């Protein structure tokens, strides 16, 4: 078969990278001013296919540079160097309300990036692409070790960077949900922190049969990190998402033994019985269940369950007593928790108390609740199992 002229060249760099690193997708030697679609495909561990695509027009030399050029449409548009990853969504016909999550963080995500002729919006797998490449996206850097931890009644997963240490550490408190999301924890270890992803919503039951762990559970977890031979005991931070963030705030203020070097609260709230426990937070939610709303597709909105922000000090964490730097990360379109309202109130409390200099708030417009490591697909809604009631949302 004789082929004339230069051969089309698709390159993706790097072909192996951490999930928080950018990729560069380049097309060379296409026809000049040619309509092209760049398509990404990822098959999850559950067998679901996720895809993203962008429409581009090659320049006069037949080149497309996804990092530089403007995407004219698809699952994203505009100048979006990483749109091919963050706009991944379940392919049409998939099970409803899927959430993107990597369970085995020791193996990479395999993403196939293909180039198609013309502006396509569907049926990608039925057509032969012009070219494809495969990239690996890793959560775990080489040398990071994963250890399943059970110590002093505490369970979770410990991630250790390579090397002798000692290292700064992070106690990672993920949000509500059935499985244990380790993605953030392993990524933090890939950046040099000993990280403990704590399992606090589904612990092993004690002989007493108590369902929710008490504050001593978190204190033990913190102490496990402090006493680990590879951890610098005075350099432990707490990072929490959602429920985890709420716990982090309460514990940092009221626990006599938990003194983090700094706190990161993602999509969290300080509204909870002051000095209370995880069980108290759940009880508070339950009390306000009548405030649950539903959108036009019957999806659950829990945003109002903690509203209005109380003025009664016993109903919220006294963040004016915080002694360490606090980073609040808030999505202004959070429909699950009143993160934005909580952040405003916390700011006011801290300024009145004189420790406002410790606070940094990052507030993102049109952003939701699940603020995950970068370039993960956005989930506007997903299946959820209430940790306490085991009730599935949305109801079947």
């Amino acid at each position, binding site marked *: *078969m*004789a*082929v004339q002229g*230069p*051969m089309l*060249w*698709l*390159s993706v760099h*790097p*072909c*192996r*990278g*951490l999930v928080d*690193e950018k990729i560069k997708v380049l097309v060379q*030697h296409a026809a000049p001013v040619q309509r092209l679609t760049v398509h990404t495909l990822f098959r999850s561990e559950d067998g679901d296919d996720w895809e993203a695509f962008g429409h581009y027009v090659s320049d006069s030399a037949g080149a497309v540079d996804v990092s530089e050029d403007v995407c004219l449409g698809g699952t994203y548009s505009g100048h979006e160097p990483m749109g091919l990853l963050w706009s991944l969504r379940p392919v049409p016909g998939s099970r409803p309300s899927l959430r993107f999550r990597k369970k085995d963080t020791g193996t*990479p995500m*395999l993403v*196939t990036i*293909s180039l198609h002729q013309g502006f396509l919006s569907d049926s990608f797998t039925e057509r*032969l*692409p*012009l*070219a*494809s*490449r*495969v*990239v*690996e996206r*890793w959560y775990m*850097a*080489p*040398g990071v070790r994963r250890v399943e931890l059970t110590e002093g009644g505490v369970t979770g997963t410990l991630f250790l*960077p*390579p*090397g*002798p240490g*000692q*290292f*700064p550490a992070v106690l990672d408190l993920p949000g509500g949900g059935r499985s244990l999301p380790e993605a953030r924890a392993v990524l933090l270890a*890939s950046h*040099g922190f000993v990280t403990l992803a704590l399992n606090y919503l589904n612990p092993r039951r004690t002989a007493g049969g108590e369902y929710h762990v008490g504050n001593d559970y978190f204190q033990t977890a913190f102490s496990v990190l402090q006493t680990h031979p590879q951890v*610098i005991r005075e*350099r432990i931070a707490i990072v929490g998402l959602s429920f985890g963030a709420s716990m982090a705030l309460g514990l940092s203020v009221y626990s006599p033994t938990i003194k983090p070097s700094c706190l990161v609260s993602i999509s969290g709230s300080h509204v909870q019985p002051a000095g209370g426990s995880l069980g108290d937070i759940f009880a508070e939610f339950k009390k306000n269940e009548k405030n649950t709303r539903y959108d036009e597709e019957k999806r659950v909105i829990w945003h109002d369950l903690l509203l209005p922000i109380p003025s009664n000090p016993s109903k919220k964490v006294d963040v004016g007593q915080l002694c360490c730097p606090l980073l609040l990360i808030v999505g202004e379109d959070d429909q699950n928790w009143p993160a934005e309202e909580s952040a405003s109130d916390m700011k006011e409390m801290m300024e009145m108390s004189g420790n406002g200099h410790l606070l940094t708030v990052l507030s993102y417009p049109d952003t939701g609740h699940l603020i995950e490591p970068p370039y993960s697909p956005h989930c506007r809604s997903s299946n959820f199992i209430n940790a306490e009631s085991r009730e599935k949302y949305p109801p079947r």
Partner: protein
Amino acid sequence: MARTIAMLSVHPSRGLVDEKFRVEVENLPPACPVTLHCLHRSEDQDHWEAFGHYCSDHSGTVKVSEDESFGGTYSGREHMGLLWSMRPVPGSRRGLRLRKTRVDFPMTLLISVYRGHLTAGFRELPPVASVVAERWYMAPGVKRIAVEERGVTGTFFIPPGPGPFPGVLDMWGGGGGLVEYRSALLASHGFASMALKYIDPGDTPTDMAMGYFETAFQIIQDHPQVTSDRVGILGLSFGTSVALTLAAYSQISRPRCCVGISGSHAYPINRPVAELFGEMGMNEKKMKRDEEDNVIMRNLILPIATDPAKKVDVGRIECPLLLVNGDDDQNWATTESAEDIANMMSVAGNKHLLTTLTYPKAGHLIEPPFTPHIRASNFIVQHSKEKVIMLWGGEPKAHAVAQEDSWKRILNFLKEHLCIEPTLAPQAKL
């Protein structure tokens, strides 16, 4: 009291073997002497190491890509010195050569930073910090296919995607066996490349001749994912003789371009390979030994024959030809051969097809970049099965330069002639 924690990083932590990485240390005390050390355990369980002596700057930072090494296994500003200057640790077996057999697994490197300027005792002392880097020959999605077809043995590496792709017939030298890593790397760059086995160190086929190589070339052309008129040949050492023979004489195999590394036009494949090796063996008196008893084979083909039957008639070649040589090659007289090739092509009128790259003080084994320079290594002499240590030549730094530069040029040459403008011939460059 605030305590600063030294932070060591390597970026990227996973890369292809021909990509550079940045090794940096931060949060050291200012003007702090440190040693950056790289350790690798080979598939044969030997340990290789490299190290450089540095001093942190006023901000407590060391950047290997920018700073000067004051000593170690390399010195000066050497971005990739921690890789190319690796050598077997003291006490290792003699004559080692670092070669990757399992290309679907990476080379794993342990990179550490130690206090002070050390030259030994790395195992016994705790480092300040360590990180791990992976170096891969194979990009994700590259398919590895064993070939056992029409009497030919090899391994085909096909890039990801539907294709079709340009093809490469990839041959190593007289050491024999099936060496896959260069083909895996070529496929990672978009070429469907077949690594060919034509000598088995234990058992030389007696009748393998040009037909075997033509069949191998045909197999590549016949592959549904290869563009049959965009196939080139890459050979090293004896593999160059094969490449030149096919390019000059074959009526069946018409390579689009040829690359000959550390080779010669001597020993055209106009007789069975075994016979050619036998003939080499008969010239044993031309082989010399150095003061360490390493075998020097370069005089075997000297003086360059004037009898045309004893060398490939390169005047017949019709495709672009790139020769890559080290001028300290102690195994083959490649620079003399290159000169003779240029003369022959000049007389024949096809010299415009020739590009010759000659690297000062580089040796015979010009491999993909950032792999250690091997000055001499264990070798089984084909005809006698004698185990010797063969002297390849070259000096580490100069050889590293040759490997890095030549690989870029080889990839560009293959891309230019197999992917871009197959009908144009390059201007001759010397």
